[in-house]
């Protein structure tokens, strides 16, 4: 499985689209797109749905203590976190 940041980013976008049913143009979403608040506008329920979807997609576990706002600052911060998790496997 290719774990390059670009591939991870694309897989995150797919999970966002599938799990959250967001009808946004994925090409408009970049590394800098915020996930919470302005940007994709996810609320706490949306974040949890996304986390469960990402755990399933990447076969990793998000620690509850790590579910901080900084992690969901944008797609880039989430990509970096998953990249690190995959490297630890």
């Amino acid at each position, binding site marked *: 499985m290719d774990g390059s940041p670009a591939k991870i980013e694309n897989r995150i976008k797919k999970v966002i689209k*599938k799990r959250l*049913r967001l009808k946004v143009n994925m090409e*408009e979403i970049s590394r800098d797109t915020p996930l919470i608040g302005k940007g994709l*506008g996810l*609320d706490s*329920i*949306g974040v*949890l749905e996304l986390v469960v979807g990402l*755990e399933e997609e990447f076969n990793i576990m998000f620690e509850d203590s790590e579910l901080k706002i900084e992690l969901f600052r944008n797609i880039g911060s989430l990509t970096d976190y998953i990249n690190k998790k995959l490297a630890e496997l």
Partner: protein
Amino acid sequence: MNNKVLPFWISTNEDRYPHKVALIDGDKRITYSELNDAVSRLAAWLISRGVERGDRVALLLQNSSEFVIGFFAVARLGAIAVPLNVQYQEQELTDYFRDSNPKAVIALTHIIPLVKEVISAINNKECDIIGVPDGGNGSFSYSHIMKEASPCNGTIDLQPQNDVLWQYSSGSTGRPKRIIRTHSNLVSEAENFTSTAHITSNDKILCVVPLFHAHGFGNCMLASIYAGATLVMLGEFNRRRVLKIIQDECMSVFPGVPFMFSILADTSLREAITLSSLRLCFSAGAPLPRETFQKFFEKYGVPIRQLYGTTETGSISINLDKNIFHTADSVGLPMRNVGVEIFGKKGEILPPNETGEIGIKSSAMIQGYAGLEDFNSDSFRNEYFFPSDLGKKDKDGNIYILGRKSLFINTGGNKVDPSEIEILLKTHPQVKEVVVVGVESYYGEGVIKAVIVPTSPCNEREIVDFCKGKIADFKIPRIVEFREEIPKSPLGKVLRKYLC
């Protein structure tokens, strides 16, 4: 003291279980004796600041010991508690504060600047603000009050018919409906639920559903304090922490909402978790998908039972069927002292298995919305309350909820009125026409979708950004779709089914 008023429970429980833990809130363990003392101190302080019988005190708190102490302190001095969602933004809070005109607000420290703005906007010059845990910026500190205030001497003559709680329900006009509940209503609610679900002082109830909602307020806090049980509080839904607490604290009762159970059923675990201490696990706020019931049972071996309730009535029914696998989709039989009937279009009571409008009769319910007489004649008829739900009973009396007559969208237990969002979006300069509908999420929950006819090109993010800060996050549309026109019938009625 009259045993049909809420402060009676606190003082009685101090006598019966002085050293028993009443509340667990993080590292804090508060006994019934300590609870009574804290309630008494806060009540005395509020009285010293001029809060009197009938005054309103707003609570802007997450699940915490301060919420419980705050509510019972307000009840003890004969005032009225107004619990509000901590996610509300300025305009929403302004609406609620304008309606309730609070004499005091007990709020999380970080919300105080917003509370001050709102208090100033409604020109309320007499309102004290108490910050939890700390004050500052012209407000009082809850921690300091608890250290310095003396306990209340003597008792205030309270009657069961005195008002003690104002809650708000989404209104069909985009403005909230005020629900006024008395001591008698809440005592009945607690009696009905605890006697039906056999909640006793041996129980440990996990409170992760918000206390500012009727579900958490009634089925967690009131039930636990009434029974002399232990209430374990979590300020937010944290998946693995919830599971660990149930296991480590040997929780016996777990009230939740469908979204929580769906997430827990899909949560990957590093180590085996045993939830065998749970004797009652139930879901309310929205229908529980059958798939969630099955996945949760397969993973944890615990059946999730469904409870039906409304803010206007408290809990109505619960499914305690021994053969739960046959009736898992049902919300069960009416609680003790609650009557439920299914009515036909002419107002006749329908026989089993026929679908009609659900009507509820209960000593715990209100008799009407404050100041909405026109609306009351539709919702309150012949001593029954009609919450706009459609349903049926089977031959054994089990109730099944089959739909809603109203357009409300249920997002994770929050009922959202689409017209409130439509009114806001219509003020966006590029929105010519907008209709807000609910669509199903991955977990079968309601997701808010705005369908917009724009006056000029704009994108989804501009719409989401526009909403941010003006309404609570859970009301912001997750899906925004642009169309050239809104589908309508020849008579001009919006055809919502083509928008989902």
